[in-house]
């Protein structure tokens, strides 16, 4: 029997004029590991809330058709009964945690439903999610990845057979993301849970999932085994989903006639090695490194900077120890390193929000200590990781204008309109920033960031939490911005962004700078990438797997390099 069966389901949110889900028919078998993909607003999250009964029990609206979980109609079961069958982890999972300690939170639902062995269940769930040694820790001691595992444990504790996760790895570095998916795979294989993930990182779908469901305009377009699904490159791209880079490269090579037409495309590096075997090796000449550019004027400098945080209990936590770094005018710098390596801390130091416990930071040749915050604000600007925190007014026009207005910048009105137009926000100018979509919010926060024409612009994770299409759009915006900004530093986990945008890469690890140079210097150094736990884009790894000397960072580069190979051979 199918563990989830949806029959002719249509659902409309209260007050909406169009159904979000439109005649969906679906059957999901027990033990499946299913990725749900689709455009923004295609009904992915709604579908998940239908499965755990929040719709229609908690959120009303027009509900037609039938949803059967394990043979039981969701309209006849209450939320409590369904919670024991379907576990749900939100995208903003930190708000799902309601208790102060780890074990308390994991066992809270079991306690509420009156299960006598609630603590044992909580412990078991923590063990299944790889948190067994952290039972008595407080939740603010956990890293982002661990917090996510805790939210998962809270859902697992009730013993549901189905687990649903909404974008589980959006904010995580590759190391933590692998851990989450490792845990999910174990839950799937060892404990026979049916797992549904909403995911747009197709590399992870290729590596871990069994089936893919494409939702389009509120309908289930298709439901296919993973490799077959990811091979439908055009259809996926039409829905703003980007197949793994390996698949894209194979698709392009297929179009050039280098790979046999038809059939399934490779989706992982392993499959890629098989598929690309027939392609002749290119005669690869590593391009001479461009002559080292004369570094421009120094914009900012860290001299032996040390930082430590107060902690709630015990010793202060040291983030940096004697860190040295110089930023020059005109550079586009990517700051990378795993979660907790101190990327955000470094940026907060530069804008004077944090003070170093030792050492000196110079901005424009002058020590930060001697400058007032408002002086600093003229030279440097920080765009937070979470754009919502940038909005302090009730419309984005006011938000963009604010800094210029209070400083009586000449022509601030016209400049505001210019910025709105540049970031394609003119139509949204009077809306509250918080109510915009992810991509619009991000664009608005960038506009706020460059309003004062800072000589140094800092961006904290500008592409986090965005779907791939919006990500591409932000990347385009960032490339456009190169014309108007002097020096930009981006802290990010997004290695595709690093490769396509940065001309200098700075690697943080263990409290100091461990790598600094061009992308070739950083990604080409295997010992370094392994030590720090950063992972170059998949296409880079694919290129090296086929031909050790190849350093290609984008799909077009890969296609060009290996497409050329054929021509040379002829």
């Amino acid at each position: 029997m199918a563990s989830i069966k949806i029959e002719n389901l249509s659902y409309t949110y209260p007050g909406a004029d169009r159904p979000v889900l439109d005649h969906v028919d679906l059957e999901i078998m027990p033990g499946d590991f299913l990725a749900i993909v689709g455009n923004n607003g295609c009904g992915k999250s709604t579908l998940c809330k239908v499965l755990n009964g929040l719709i229609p029990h908690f959120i009303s609206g027009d509900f037609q058709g039938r949803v059967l979980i394990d043979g039981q109609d969701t309209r006849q079961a209450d939320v409590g009964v369904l919670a024991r069958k379907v576990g749900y982890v939100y995208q903003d999972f930190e708000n799902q945690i309601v208790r102060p300690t780890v074990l308390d939170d994991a066992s809270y639902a079991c306690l509420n439903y009156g299960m006598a062995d609630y603590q044992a269940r909580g412990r078991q769930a923590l063990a299944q999610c790889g948190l067994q040694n952290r039972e008595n820790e407080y939740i603010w001691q956990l890293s982002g990845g661990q917090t996510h595992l805790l939210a998962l444990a809270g859902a697992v504790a009730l013993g549901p057979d189905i687990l649903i996760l909404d974008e589980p790895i959006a904010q995580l570095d590759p190391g933590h993301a692998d851990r989450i998916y490792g845990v999910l795979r174990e839950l799937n294989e060892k404990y026979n849970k049916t797992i549904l993930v909403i995911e747009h990182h197709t590399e992870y779908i290729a590596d871990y999932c069994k089936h893919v469901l494409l939702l389009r305009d509120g309908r289930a377009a298709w439901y296919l085994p993973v490799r077959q699904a990811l091979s439908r490159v055009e259809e996926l791209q039409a829905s703003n989903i980007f197949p793994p880079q390996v698949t894209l490269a194979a698709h392009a090579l297929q179009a050039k006639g280098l790979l046999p037409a038809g059939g399934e495309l490779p989706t992982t590096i392993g499959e890629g090695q098989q598929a690309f075997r027939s392609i002749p090796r290119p005669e690869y000449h590593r391009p001479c490194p461009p002559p080292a550019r004369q570094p421009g004027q120094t914009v900012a400098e860290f001299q032996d900077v040390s930082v430590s945080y107060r902690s709630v209990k015990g010793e202060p936590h040291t983030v940096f120890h004697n860190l040295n770094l110089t930023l020059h005018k005109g550079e586009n710098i990517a700051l990378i390193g795993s979660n907790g390596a101190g990327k955000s801390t470094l940026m907060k130091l530069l804008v004077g929000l944090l003070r170093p416990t030792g050492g000196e930071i110079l901005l424009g040749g002058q020590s930060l200590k001697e400058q007032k915050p408002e002086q600093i604000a003229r030279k440097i600007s920080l765009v937070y990781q979470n754009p919502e925190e940038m909005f302090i007014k009730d419309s984005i026009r006011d938000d963009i204008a604010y800094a210029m207005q209070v400083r009586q910048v000449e022509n601030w009105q016209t400049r505001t309109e210019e910025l709105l137009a540049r970031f394609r926000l003119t139509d949204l100018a009077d809306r509250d920033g918080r109510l915009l979509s992810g991509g619009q919010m991000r664009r608005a926060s960038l506009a706020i960031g460059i309003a004062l024409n800072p000589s140094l612009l800092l961006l904290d994770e500008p592409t986090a939490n965005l779907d791939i299409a919006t990500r591409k759009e932000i990347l385009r915006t960032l490339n456009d911005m190169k014309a108007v900004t002097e020096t930009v530093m981006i802290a990010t986990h997004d290695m595709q962004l690093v490769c396509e945008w940065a001309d200098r890469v700075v690697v943080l690890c263990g409290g100091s700078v461990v790598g600094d140079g061009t992308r070739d210097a950083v990604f080409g150094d295997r010992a370094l990438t392994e030590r720090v736990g950063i992972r170059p884009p998949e296409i880079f790894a694919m290129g090296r797997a086929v031909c050790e000397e190849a350093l290609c960072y984008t799909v077009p580069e890969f296609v060009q390099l290996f497409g050329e190979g054929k021509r040379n051979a002829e």
Partner: protein
Amino acid sequence: MLNKLSESILDKFSMDFLRNQVLKNAYGNDDTLIAVRDPRVLLLWYLFFGLVPWFVNDIVFLLGCFVLVMITTLLARVAGLVLFLFALGVFSQTGYLLIVTLLFGGDASAILPLLVLTLKVTTVSLASVTVFSGLDPDRLSNGLMWYGCPERLSFSISYAYRMLPMLMEEFQNVLLSYRLRGNPPAHDSIPGKIRYLIYQVKVIVHSFYPLMLNTAKRSRTTVEALEIKGYRYAASSKEVRRMKLASLKISYDDLIFAAVSFLWVAVTMLLSSIL
């Protein structure tokens, strides 16, 4: 020099520091002698030391109680900020009374009754500080629940502590936005300082709107999660209540604590009758 000092004090008194102190106060000392006491015993203890001093005027007895609650406060390792606020509150109140008395024709004889009042207020406050900040919020709310307080109240206490750091973080972020983008008036002269103060107050008022909206957005998920986790179901179930309270156990040490307090009070009473 003075400038440097005031800057460093302001620096210390950041939102980050406040947040840290709140957390420290709530959860940082879970292994102290006071924190491991059974909350029911402590609440009874508090009932005595929070009420009786108001009705007694005997100095020796009051001094005795004061010394005892001072010791318990030290044992509870209460966060510095709380003690500071406590001292500020007590001394500004009674100091103000003293000044008013002296201004309106009182003389030095007013000092003694004021001292008694101060002693009472201090004793009661320190007893409150011991119980409410020595115990972590969960144990406290369990204790209250045992005495029949509704489940919703006890959940609110522990959830407030869960939310508070988040609220403060949001607030900090909004203030940071103002600091990074705003243009505060120069504050070198005296009128400038006043304008600066007014500016700061304005910013805090303006921060309220984004703070509330951001928090409301976050709490949407929390409300749904609570529903899934059966919070509503538990609130009406006697069985769950029993399970929650099952973790409360009175140990020997609790009895010793109660006995020592009792003995201490008895001895001070004895002393006061002898003297």
